[in-house]
């Protein structure tokens, strides 16, 4: 199973999202083809209601812990409640351009 499929199934099972995007953005970075190293996640779930941004991100990072240990390098996380998602017009911000840091050293980003 690809990392993309594993992340999708993990987040679907644990967060019961109303909307979920798991985008592999590795091709925008200085990594080999098929690296599955950089992802953008858009998660819209009732589970985030009443939670601070850092709590939401910690929850998602925790669900991705094994992936981070096994080569996931960056996860841009956009975590919204259904009401916030409507307010934002059902759109998440675009991810930034690379600038070479992951080539200099492997280990982390976002």
């Amino acid at each position, binding site marked *: 199973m690809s990392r993309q499929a594993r992340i999708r199934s993990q987040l679907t099972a644990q967060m019961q999202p109303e909307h979920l995007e798991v985008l592999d953005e590795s091709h925008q970075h200085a990594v080999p083809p098929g690296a599955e190293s950089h992802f953008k996640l858009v998660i819209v779930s009732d589970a985030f209601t009443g939670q601070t*941004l*850092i709590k939401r*991100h*910690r929850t998602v*990072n925790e669900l*991705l*812990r094994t992936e*981070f240990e096994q080569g996931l*390098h*960056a*996860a*841009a*996380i*956009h975590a919204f409640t259904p009401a916030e998602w409507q307010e934002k017009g059902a759109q998440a*911000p675009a*991810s*930034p*351009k*690379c*600038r*070479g*840091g*992951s080539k*200099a*050293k492997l*280990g*982390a*980003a*976002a």
Partner: protein
Amino acid sequence: MDVLERIDQQVKGHPVVIYMKGTPQFPQCGFSMRAAQALTESGVPFAHVNVLQDPEIFEHLPRYADWPTFPQIYVDGELIGGCDITLELHASGELKTMLEAAVAKAAEAG
């Protein structure tokens, strides 16, 4: 000095500090660049640590606050998050308020 103690001193010794890839002037990662830009736009002075220049911090920072990726932004001794959270707080106007409060608190403490 132990690396975690060194990080602790940096985090507690500056009201605002960003751990990033590169510097605010020459960022080497798009996420680091955007987060540093948001801090700069808030108009509050901040410290930075280039994790690409400090292999020990690069390796151990993720376990300091149990956060897997870079950049990491600390305000008043606490992790506020990475790039995504910093940009959201900047967009809502909360970031400037938080940074100004942290700087004022540090000035009072002398």
